[in-house]
């Protein structure tokens, strides 16, 4: 919190300049939600269904690949539409950056970002230590439980689809899970859900290891070691290899699949070190 406060005082740039990508992300998340709602509310069917599976203009199918995997683990032979849908989603995130889903689409990201903001405002520093690898174990565990119970196990509790389905089809008691995630992130552990537990993000993280659009510490010589990017990044471990490499020849691209392409580092850096780039833009494989 301290560093954030200092930055907002000393930064010579406007609030909009420091929140450009943040505003775009929120716009993207809310627009997607709005497009799912425009059908039932106004009869404008651009996106139909929900984040589990949907159609764009009733033609292009989209299906969440992790849900698809669970269904296969549970022993079901998926229909053609769902298979095409899962493939479409994989292709989209191979281009846009795997966990771009997390920061540009997922509605839970708004909840957990709000929780993190409140956490810093309240000055809560106590944090139950969770391992980053927890989500990988959860990812595997869910597939095993799906196979053993022959159900799509995670969809019974998945906060992402619970929230989005709740908003588009009717909330019921789903807000209980939202509140649980919110309280977890505010009081129990720093960036607990998206940063340590969510298995859906793991799948997109795998795509992110090879996806086209990445963030690049293009002007890393200009870094003044102020630490703003580390303070604001939801996955701070991804920055150092690109920004402060042991070897000068190392790629300035942020290559970790954990990076969500949220662009917060671009926003907060006064020296304009970071930028969006493509993986293959400069020379051979980085």
């Amino acid at each position: 919190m301290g560093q954030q406060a200092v930055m907002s005082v000393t930064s010579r740039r406007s609030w909009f300049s420091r929140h450009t990508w943040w505003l775009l992300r929120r716009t993207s998340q809310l627009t997607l939600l709005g497009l799912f709602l425009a059908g039932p509310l106004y009869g404008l069917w651009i996106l139909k269904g929900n984040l589990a599976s949907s159609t764009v203009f009733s033609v292009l199918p989209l299906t969440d690949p992790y849900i698809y995997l669970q269904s296969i683990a549970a022993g079901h032979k998926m229909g053609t539409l769902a298979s095409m849908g899962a493939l479409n989603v994989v292709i989209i995130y191979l281009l846009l950056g795997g966990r771009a889903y997390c920061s540009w689409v997922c509605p839970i990201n708004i909840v957990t970002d709000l929780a993190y903001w409140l956490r810093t405002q309240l000055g809560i520093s106590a944090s139950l230590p969770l391992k980053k690898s927890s989500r990988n174990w959860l990812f595997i565990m869910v597939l095993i439980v799906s196979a053993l119970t022959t159900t799509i196990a995670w969809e019974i509790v998945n906060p992402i689809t619970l929230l989005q389905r709740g908003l588009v089809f009717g909330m019921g008691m789903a807000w209980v899970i939202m509140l649980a995630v919110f309280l977890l992130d505010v009081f129990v552990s720093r960036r607990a859900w998206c940063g340590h537990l969510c298995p859906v993000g793991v799948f997109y993280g795998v795509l992110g290891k090879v996806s086209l659009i990445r963030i690049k510490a293009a002007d890393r010589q200009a870094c003044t070691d102020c630490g703003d990017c580390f303070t604001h990044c939801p996955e701070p471990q991804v920055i150092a290899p690109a920004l402060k490499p042991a070897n000068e020849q190392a790629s300035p691209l942020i290559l970790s699949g954990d990076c969500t392409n949220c662009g917060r580092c671009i926003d907060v850096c006064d020296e304009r070190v970071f930028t969006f780039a493509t993986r293959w833009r400069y020379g051979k494989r980085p």
Partner: protein
Amino acid sequence: MADTANPDHAHYLSRRQFVGQCLQTAGGFSLIGLLLGAYSAQSVSTPAWALRPPGAIDDEDFLAACVRCGLCVRACPFDTLRLATFAEDVATGSPYFIARQVPCEMCEDIPCTAACPTDALSKELDDVGQASMGVAVMTGLDTCYSITGAAHCRACYLACPLQGEAITMEQKRTGRRTYFEPTVHAAHCTGCGKCEKACVTEQASIKVLPTVLAKQDR
């Protein structure tokens, strides 16, 4: 935090510590897995008042197939279908309808089934008359107006889309009088629920039970 701990410490991890940490991780996630498994296994059985859309595959397989996207709900022109919300008796997010509230209108082109991306609603069902969402059962033999003689009611018979096949009015005779008893022919009944919706008694005297309850033993 553990994941930002000094990597040098890894050198000092004894075998005992290593095995201990592995067991801790495995134990912790097995525990979460057991809880999730118990919850999802419990959610497989649906209550007797919840009917799945036409073409739904067997209930044990349904929750392996249905991704709870709601495209069937969107395809339904009659607002029959809805998605279960969290902590409802029906598995989270899965589609169902309540016959007494809004029954299935048995559209000829079965749009809900056509919209299903995962084949949880099987496209092998091409004639909606062959659907088996449930079976109508006379539950109110003591309340049915036609049986008790309170009125010449045949609302269920008239509402049935397979009139004269799935429900017939059978003439019965007791010592003193003749009456007509609505009689369900299970082989023809699709479980659409229009009879249950149409029944004029305070509590429906004819109810649709899910196929799994009406036609299968435990």
